[in-house]
């Protein structure tokens, strides 16, 4: 129970960093922390107390794996989610570099040509 609460704390830290910091790079870091907090939450959902990793060895039966193994489905979800986070991060970084070329600043409060 305390683990879920800690991932929520991590999520809130990421959102705080996204909102309160002015530098674009810090906002990107905040969004990445938020992504990782959600990935951690998904892995913890699949946990089973006193469980083993869901890998089959040569002389194991499927009943043993189903009884003692942790849930492998959230691990597959998290792999996909990490790759999606990677794609978004690389897109964000390249847009951020181009923004520096055009506006000559990393400060978000000066990048406000679109208004109204």
């Amino acid at each position, binding site marked *: 129970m305390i683990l879920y609460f800690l991932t929520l704390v991590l999520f809130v830290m990421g959102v705080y960093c996204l909102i309160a910091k002015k530098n674009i790079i810090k906002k990107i870091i905040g969004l990445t922390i938020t992504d990782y907090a959600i990935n951690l939450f998904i892995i913890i959902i699949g946990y089973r107390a006193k469980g083993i990793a869901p890998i089959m060895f040569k002389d194991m039966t499927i009943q043993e794996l189903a009884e003692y193994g942790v849930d492998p489905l959230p691990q597959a979800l998290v792999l996909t989610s990490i*790759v999606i986070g990677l794609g978004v991060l690389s897109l964000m970084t*390249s847009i951020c*570099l181009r923004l520096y*070329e055009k506006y000559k600043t990393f400060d978000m409060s000066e990048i406000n040509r679109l208004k109204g």
Partner: protein
Amino acid sequence: MATKPELVSSDSPKGMTPIVKTVVRFAIGIVFMFGWYIIIYGHLTPGGGFAGGTILACGYVLLTLAFGKEVALAKMSDKAASIIDNSAAFLFVATAIVGLAFGYFFLNFPPHGKPFNLVSAGTIPLYNILIGLKVTSSLFAIFLALSIFGRFISKLVEEAEEEE
């Protein structure tokens, strides 16, 4: 592709100090071999296409950091990265569509073989290898685009070289 000896020698001006270059010359083969091991054994042990591909891309980044960009570009140029990237992804979708001819989309159509062997589980090792190639070339292409071919950073690098 063999690189010119003067580029990878320990006292060429580009890249890092001779200690780093010597160690990387030993370690880079092990890094690549480890990456391919993770990719190929993906259906038996943890890992698979994405994890192994990331390790290989980091190997290329290690080459760039230790020896300079000419060596890494000689090993995998940006054009080669783009071609490998697109053809691996296209072959992935093509293999999935071939399953349609056998019944279902993404069907595991080759014979499955005995479990725990290296050659088993149908199309899964093939998918792992294709994803490994795609991830390698994609991550290295992103690294190149952001650091060497990005206009902003390359302008800074040229100005620093002119000052020297």
